[in-house]
């Protein structure tokens, strides 16, 4: 279970998180949405312990992580898999080495078992036979899929996705969404997806958190969000700009 309690974070005078509180139970698929720069990725980095809040708490399976040092966090992070916006693959390693990175570090599997797991995971993300390629040889969509394969290869219980479809064409975006759903169902993981792609949020999420001005503005099902009578929510999900608000 993941819980945030009154999470606050500022960069200089800019308040990015202003008292965020929510709870995600095991096996849930949650989508966090909000305008560009509203702090979605910052929130995600707090959940996985890559950033420390100015105030508030983050609990993973009931354990507070905000005062942990880097080595204590490593143990907590082994529960997580994360797909980065840029995929963040290690340039110097092959696809197979990227995917098997944690498995080799853990030292619990033989080389043959790791190779088998890598092949199986690549099959799951529909990229069989790409083990020997370097990240530089892959397209944007392929890199995201390898990033996803790396995030799930060691079977974490929570997978977080930071803007998984940003910069991809609609067909590849659809394929990534389907992969997220497949991973969630097959591996029974808790999924947290940060996105501002409305098609993606409707498909992937069972629950949506809409962030605005550093707070959770609405917490509801996709139906509630997409049928909301609130003009702010409605404008966001339908992609209609408020020129006054954005100060154009």
């Amino acid at each position: 279970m993941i819980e945030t309690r009154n999470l606050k974070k500022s960069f200089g005078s800019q308040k990015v998180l202003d008292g965020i509180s929510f709870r995600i139970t095991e096996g849930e698929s949650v989508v966090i949405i909000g305008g560009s720069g509203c702090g979605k990725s910052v929130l995600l980095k707090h959940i996985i312990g890559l950033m420390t809040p100015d105030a508030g708490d983050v609990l993973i399976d009931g354990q507070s992580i905000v005062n942990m040092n880097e080595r204590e966090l490593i143990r907590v992070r082994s529960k997580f898999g994360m797909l980065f916006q840029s995929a963040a693959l290690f340039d110097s390693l092959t696809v197979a080495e990227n995917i098997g990175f944690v498995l080799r570090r853990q030292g619990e599997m033989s080389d043959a078992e790791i190779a088998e797991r890598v092949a199986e995971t690549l099959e799951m993300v529909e990229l069989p036979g790409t083990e020997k390629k370097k990240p530089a040889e892959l397209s944007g969509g392929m890199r995201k899929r390898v990033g996803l394969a790396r995030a799930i290869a060691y079977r974490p219980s929570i997978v977080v996705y930071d803007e998984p479809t940003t910069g991809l064409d609609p067909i590849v975006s659809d394929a990534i969404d389907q992969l997220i759903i497949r991973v969630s169902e097959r591996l029974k993981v808790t999924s947290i997806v940060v996105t501002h792609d409305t098609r993606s949020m409707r498909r992937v999420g069972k629950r949506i958190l809409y962030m605005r001005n550093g707070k959770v503005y609405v917490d509801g099902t996709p139906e509630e969000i997409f049928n909301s009578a609130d003009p702010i929510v409605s404008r966001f999900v339908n992609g209609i700009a408020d020129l006054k608000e954005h100060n154009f």
Partner: protein
Amino acid sequence: MNAVLRRAWGQIEEVGQYAILCWETFLSLLKEKKYWSEILHQIYFIGVKSQSVVIITGAFTGMVLAAQAYIQFGRVHMETGTLALVSVSMCSELGPVLSALMVSGRAGAAMAAELGTMRVTEQIDALRTLATHPVDYLIAPRVLATSIAMPLLTAIAIVVGIGGGYVVTVYVFHIDKVYAWANMIKYSSNHHVWNGLIKSAFFGVIISTVSAFKGLNCPQGAEGVGKATTEAVVAASISILISNFFLTMSIGRWLAP
């Protein structure tokens, strides 16, 4: 005034962060699992790949030093001491310092640029999410590899420098090779060699930790990577020159008979 204080505070903070990184690296080297394949890869990259620059630097420094020493010694009719001066200088000062400056420019810059690029492309964050401490996987192997490679490179620079000096002394200035060699053996001793090799290991630690620190704290964007790389080379080079004085005063005195 506030801006000056803020800048000074920023510098103090940076020194503190550097000290923490050094301490974490030391603890990692003592306690954590070693990535031997990464260490060997780094020894190859820092050591083997830097050989050509170190050989050229060592050879020409030895030759120039021999030429200068011959001219100056000629005034007091001590030309046969030329190779002895080249040997002592190469072993205790020029070998370690010039090798370190060359490695700092080649491998240190590459290290800062690689780690900086990893930071701006979120690869360092990715490493942390994959339950791996960046110090264990990225910094400790580089520090260990640089402090192993540096004494070996320095030894090469010393040998090549003395060789270059010998060629100039014997074949260009026609000093009798027996005198040149005998004086070199007479005035050079083990402590000169140990002095140079121990210092070079320290310089290896300085190059790798300074370059890693600059890379890990690189500002965002391509400009940030360029800035971090430049700062790494400048900071490492200055640190080498300053620390050389203190190392000479401490190790040199400790080793001297």
